[in-house]
């Protein structure tokens, strides 16, 4: 098995096909979207492929060290052009193809008009444990 991060971007990635911002959906469409995400996670738990799922607040701050004895320097939030992570799901699956298949399924979550979002999800493999036998 190998673990993959399915990364959902608020912005920064290519635009989804069904590109209507969520605040322009009907409440029923929002509810249907949320239900789809919950059902998807539940199904993965059932197949033994679910590891973790989290959503992130849109408020992000950049922080850096500024030398001994000085408070950290903060910056941001940045302009709309910056990449912004909305949330993630971690899956543990048998093959890379299975990871793509699940990401595509997640991307089909319904949006405006109840039609699939077709949003772009980023699939990133985890670094695996090192094998014992190498030679």
């Amino acid at each position: 098995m190998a673990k993959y991060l399915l990364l959902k971007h608020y912005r920064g990635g290519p635009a989804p096909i069904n590109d209507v911002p969520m605040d322009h959906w009907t409440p029923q469409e929002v509810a249907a979207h949320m239900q789809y995400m919950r059902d998807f996670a539940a199904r993965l738990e059932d197949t033994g492929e679910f590891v973790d799922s989290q959503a992130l607040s849109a408020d992000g701050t950049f922080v850096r060290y500024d030398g001994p004895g000085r408070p950290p320097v903060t910056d941001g939030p940045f302009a709309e052009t910056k990449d912004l992570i909305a949330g993630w799901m971690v899956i543990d699956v048998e093959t890379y193809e299975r990871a793509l298949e699940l990401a595509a399924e997640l991307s089909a979550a319904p949006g405006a008009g109840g039609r699939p979002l077709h949003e772009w999800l980023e699939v990133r493999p985890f670094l695996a444990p090192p094998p014992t036998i190498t030679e």
Partner: protein
Amino acid sequence: MDDTLLRTLTPAVIGILVRRGADFAAAEDAVQDALVEAVRVWPADPPRDPKGWLVTVAWRKFLDAARATTARRHRELLVDREPTSDPRPGEAVDDTLQLYFLCAHPSLSPASAVALTLRAIGGLTTRQIAQAYLVPEATMAQRISRAKRTISGVRFNQPGDVATVVRVLYLVFNEGFTIGDSGDVDLACEAIRLTRQLAARTTHEEVAGLLALMLLHHARRPARTRPDGSLVPLADQDRGLWDTRLIAEGVAVLQAALARDRLGEFQAQAAIAALHADARTAEETDWAQIVEWYDELVRLTDSPVARLNRAVAVGEAYGPRAGLAALAELDPALPRHTAVAAYLHERDGDPVTAARLYAEAARSAPNLPERDHLTRQAARLNAQRRR
């Protein structure tokens, strides 16, 4: 209380319950419940006959569960099965061996077979297995119950294939996170324990080959990583840290298997590990003989990984140019192809190409220790160049 002793009894107790008429899935659950109770009760009140105690408690748990769910149907089934509950006299059936076959059944995915083997034969809890593979306990529980459903139609006493069992045990040894001393599950040790137990029950050469392979690699474990967790390549390992007792045992197991003249891939791999173990210094390594064993391995498996490792051995035995020539015949998209090329170019006196390839290999490394190692190699060569 000795947790391992308790876990050793697991497969035999499951076997007895199945012979009494329980289906495998229910028997396995009942024995897990009995193990939990043993951990609670035994320290204060150790039984005279641990196995008998487990059978009694597990059987009671099984009956309780059967009554609680579909009471009447189960009781009828039990009555039906009672006459066949014990093996006929003279019929030697090894329940534990049958469990190995069942848990590695070809209908299971490798990950499911691994999880089921660790629980039903290893006696580990779902939580321990989940920790070892870094997934939530609920996910691992699902994986195990799906695996049980998949094999629910398989007859318990059906003859199985040792080759699939060997593959599952190899995965447990080679592809788990090493929880090591900090956690309570050490998959490498558990894989060795389960393979020893299997080797005591079958004369199959590849089981012996796998056991030898595990012992020879496990012997090098103390030398394989620095205290900070970074990898030490074989050539740089402090050979004084190798466990000579494990090496001697591995070599003896391997020799006995090879003497039977039915070579398989695990015996060939173990032979390579034995040749490394045999060298007192890296320079004394008999690379020519290692190349011959890789030729055998390629013949047996036709595996691209074996071909790649063979190219490294050729480079050591016959010079980096010969190694690069062997490498040129392989698909550059192979994992670790670039890392091998970097190593051979450095040996060939081309640090510029080597540094570039090490950096490239680091970017596509499949795990963190390997990535760090390759990055350090690139950094070392780049620093030498600046001097």
